[in-house]
Structures are given as C-alpha cells and as structure tokens.
C-alpha cells in the first residue's frame, strides 16, 4: 500500500473547518428581534449573522492568538525585512497560488482571465526566477483575484450567514467551502512526499500567514483603535471586499473576438 505523504494531512483543514461550522451553528444563535419592530428585523437580516454569539467567541480567541503570535511576527517581519525583499517574497507566494487561480478562472468560464493566469505562471516562473520578480505585470498580464469562493459565487451560490472561524477568520459557508476546494485542487498540496517537501509546504503556509498579516498591519490596528465594535466592522469590511472581488470578476469578461473582425469597444 502506498504510504500517504505528510502533506496529505493539510486537506484535513477543511474537514476541521466543517466540524467547527457545525459546532458553531449548534452552539449559539442570536435571538431574532420581535416582528413588530420592522427596523430591527431589517437590521438583523442585513447583518445576516445568526451565529453571532459563537462567532464573537471565536473572534475573541483569534484576536488573543493574533495579539501574542501573529501580530508580533508581522511587526518583526516588517521591521527586519525591507519592503523590496518583502514584496519579492510576496511575489513568490502569489506565484505559488497561481495554479489554483488558473483552475478557478477556468471554472468561472473566463478564458481571458485564465489566459492571464497561465501567462503569469509561465513568465514569472521562468523569466521572473521562480516568481521572485513579477515580470508578467509589466508585460501586460497583471494579477487578479480568483478563488474557490468567487467561483461558487459566480455559479450562483448565495454567500450564506457570516462565520468567524478559528485560524481562518472571517468567512462564510460559501467561502469556507471554496477555500477547502482551493487547498484540495492546489497541485502543490499533492506534490511529492518526505520531510523536506512537507516542511517546505508548512513554510509556505506560515509565510503566507505572516505576509498577509503584514499587509493588513496598519489597517487592522486602525480598525481596533477606531471602531466601536471591531467585530462588526470586520464583518462589514469582509463582506464588502468579497462582493467587490466578485463584481470585478463578473464584469471582467471581455469578448474574445477574432483579430480580423470588428473589435467591440471596451468601456
């Protein structure tokens, strides 16, 4: 029997997330306001957060972990590593996630975007020296957001109620499912075996976490200092940001017209 590589354990994360989702939905629910207060009912429906008490517990747990682990790492990373080096590391991480983007572009039936992702992998992995330099952007293939949650959204799946998961943070049933699909469909998840491969895999996830956290360092500090209810503010920001990514993907679908034919005017 073939022994499964240690990196196989990673796809267990979505399963864990699923279990937590289930636990969260059972553990506690926000009480629905009485029907004779239409404004309050409208507000309850708008925030679409029936698991709010449980979500707030996880928010507090994540916040505590962030304060003692991730934020200090991000602060140190930003302090020690110059911006140029950080952006090169960011480029490498982005390049590693491009196969998943390409896969999602295809599932979204966006041939132009898929072509851009394909060219980004090709150019940045070779001329860009394993993704260190983002040559593709200069050559006319700029990066775009594309992930499993967006694919499901474009397929018409509703977002569902707000979720705040341990480690993963703000999400929704749709986006958590998409995240699981992304991890499972990422070729690197399944690539090779052995101590070196799996430790490189974990290094990548760790670096991604620090890189992402560093990029939102100032913004998150500002939210925590300025918001009266940081949890609600993050909920609103997360939803708006996702919606704008989805809208952009939906509208960025230029016609692929043969060169000899009248070209449609791009707005």
């Amino acid at each position: 029997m073939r022994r499964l590589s240690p990196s196989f354990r990673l796809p267990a994360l979505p399963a864990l997330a699923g279990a937590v989702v289930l636990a969260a939905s059972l553990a506690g629910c926000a009480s629905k306001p009485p029907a004779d207060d239409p404004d309050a009912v409208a507000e309850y429906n708008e925030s679409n957060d029936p698991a709010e008490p449980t979500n707030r517990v996880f928010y507090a747990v994540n916040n505590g972990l962030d304060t003692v682990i991730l934020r200090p790492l991000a602060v140190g990373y930003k302090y020690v590593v110059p911006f140029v080096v950080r952006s090169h590391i960011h480029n490498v991480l982005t390049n590693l996630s491009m196969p998943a983007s390409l896969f999602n572009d295809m599932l979204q039936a966006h041939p132009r975007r898929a072509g851009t992702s394909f060219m980004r992998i090709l150019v940045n992995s070779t001329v860009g020296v394993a993704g260190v330099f983002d040559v593709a952007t200069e050559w006319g293939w700029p990066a775009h957001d594309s992930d499993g949650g967006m694919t499901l959204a474009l397929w018409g799946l509703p977002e569902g109620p707000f979720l705040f998961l341990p480690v993963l943070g703000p999400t929704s049933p749709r986006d958590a499912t998409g995240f699981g699909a992304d991890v499972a469909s990422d070729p690197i998840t399944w690539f090779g075996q052995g101590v070196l491969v799996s430790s490189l895999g974990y290094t990548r996830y760790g670096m991604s976490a620090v890189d992402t956290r560093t990029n939102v360092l100032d913004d998150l500090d500002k939210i925590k200092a300025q918001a009266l209810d940081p949890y609600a503010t993050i909920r609103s920001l997360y939803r708006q940001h996702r919606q704008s990514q989805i809208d952009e993907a939906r509208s960025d679908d230029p016609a692929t017209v043969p060169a000899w034919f009248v070209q449609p005017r791009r707005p």
Partner: protein
Amino acid sequence: MLTRRILLMSATAVLPVLGLPLSPARAQSLDQATAFIERTMKEIAAVVNAPDTLAGKQQKLQAIIDRTVDVDGVARFCLGRFWRTASPAQQNQYLDLFHRVLMINITGKVGEYQGVSFVLGRTQPREGAIVVSSTVNRPGTAPSKVDWLVSNETGSPKIIDVIAEGTSLRLTQRSDYAAYLSHNNNSVQALIDALRQQASQPG
C-alpha cells in the same frame, strides 16, 4: 459573405449603444466631478508632502476636508434609522462629535502619508451620485484602489463616500454604529458617550 456584412453592420449599429451616449448636462457634471476630485487630490498631496509641522499639516488638511466633504450628510447616513429617534439636542451633539472623531481619524496619521500621489481613473454615474476612481500610491506599500463618491445635492460637488479596495467608509461606519447601538439597548446617548470618549483621545 452576405452574413458577414450583416454581422458587421449589426456590430457597428450596436457600438453607439455600448458607448453609453450621455446627455450634455450629465457629461458636464461628470467632468465637473472629475475636475473637483483632481483639484482636491492635488491640494491634499501638496499639504501632506509639504515640509510643514505635523500640527500645521493637520490644520490645513482639516480645512480641505471641511470644504470638500459633506461631513453632516455622512454623519446622518452613518446613524441610519437612529437619526429619527434622536432628539434635536442629541442630533447636534452627535454631528459635532462625529466631525471631531472623523478629523482625528483622518489627520491623526497624516505623517504616515508622506510621499503620497494619486492617479485618476475613469468617472461614472452610480446611484444618483458620481464615482471618480483613483489609484493611491504610497512609498513602501502596494498601490491601492480608491473610489470617491461625489454628490451635487448640496449645490456644489461634495465627497460623500470613500470606497477603498471595494469597501465603503460610510457603510462600514454605519454597521459599526448599528452593532454598537444594538448592544447598548439602541440608546443614541450611549453612542454619543462612546464618541465623546473617542474624541477626547489623541489619535
């Protein structure tokens, strides 16, 4: 051959529709909004990048915001349905505090914006207002996409919202206030007290 010609003809017939013909008045208000944002961006960049003291910069920035942003309109929007339930005295207190907290939040970090520059994108109408897109470049950070929502409702062009990377400042602020209010028995007075607390803290 004939089919191709028909296709070509129908394609050219569709083009003006795709090009969104605008009435002269609307086109003019779009140009006006673009010019207004361009002027404002230049003023802000000039103040932020000037060799001035922090206090001097904050004061000048405050003057620009007072002139170009419909602060009262934004404040009313952020309070949402609770604006109607607030007493006139509370409304005045709230407007005053909102104004002060907004100024602290914007001008508090003015030192960090050294070297900022703006590149304007396209302008288009949206929901009774006009959106002017821009890219904000700051040294040491990745460029960010910022849209400015401009309204002529008060008679002259005023900024009524800033949408950074797809997130609206006033919508986010409104949900923050709404969540705070719902955890404090929908008491506008509790919100006013919290804002007073924020206004008394520097930065």
